[in-house]
């Protein structure tokens, strides 16, 4: 069906796209597991940020560039910042 607003000048073979998508799914699963398994708090936050980047790339490969942009800004940047700030506050109180 040729109803797309923008015609891309290139095509990607379906098989290659499948490989890319499966690879990213495995990476995201590994990333999520790593986030849960890492116990050191600051390191866990850094892993969470990396996980956010992985998810963003996954969304891009699944043709959702708008969600990619949201995930990059929220998951990879702002969520880790908010958690780090909370950790800083909690640590200060523990002292």
């Amino acid at each position, binding site marked *: 069906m040729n*109803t797309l*607003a923008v015609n891309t000048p290139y095509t990607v073979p379906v098989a290659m796209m499948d490989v890319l998508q499966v690879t990213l799914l495995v990476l995201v699963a590994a990333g999520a597991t790593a986030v849960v398994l890492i116990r050191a708090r600051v390191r866990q936050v850094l892993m969470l940020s990396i996980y956010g980047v992985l998810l963003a790339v996954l969304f891009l490969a699944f043709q959702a560039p*708008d969600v990619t*942009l949201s995930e990059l*800004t929220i998951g990879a940047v702002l969520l880790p910042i908010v958690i780090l*700030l909370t950790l800083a*506050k909690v640590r200060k109180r523990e002292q």
Partner: protein
Amino acid sequence: MTPSQRRWIFLVVGTGLAAFYLWGLSGLPGFGNYPGPYGPAILRIAVAQTNATGVVSAINFDYRGFDTVGEEFILFVAATGVAIVLRTLRGERERAAVDEAADRDVPPTSSAVRMVAVLFTGPVVLAGWWLASHAQTDPSGGFQGGVMLATAFVLIYLSGEFLVFKRFSPADITEAVEAVGAGGYAAIGVSAVAMGLAYLKDFLPLGQVPGAVSSSGTIALISFFVGIEVAAAFILIVAELLEQTLLIRQGG
């Protein structure tokens, strides 16, 4: 309850859950085969109807604009909630941003961090503004752009001092901008009603060229309001949290 009993309960419930999950999965349409009528229908008519080539934005801000108003106010209420919960309480006082252990040197912001933050601030502002103002032409929009603009303020904090960040984002102005952004979106909808149209019906000229910056009528305008609302909301949340690290409780 003994651990072995607990394990048995988990096994039974877990197996049941897995069975239901697999049963549900087997009924899903094939991967990539969207069976509904709306996707193809929107793709066929969206560009001609709205003059926006960013069809995602056309859906978010026009066809389903009413949903997005709700989402907008979720963020608005969340930011307000953070501001209320983290307000300065009785018995709390703010202290200056001085180091706590006078016997230890506070590590200064490393010049590498400072350099990266300074170099990135300008491009991040530009990219955020571009995303927020080009919803009609690409799959971006006010939300992503707004968050990016807020990130630029965090970079300012990273590059220098908390006080510089504060000077760049005075709470009164941030709150006012947030309110204008959220209210602006709702007001566009009400304006349409005042003209006898449906709520949020696109009433501005759609422009001549599909996908031009001046095209798509209210879609671009709504994206702009969403952009400043989201940026202000996140700056507010980060500023409140930063301030919290400077608050101390009396006697605690």
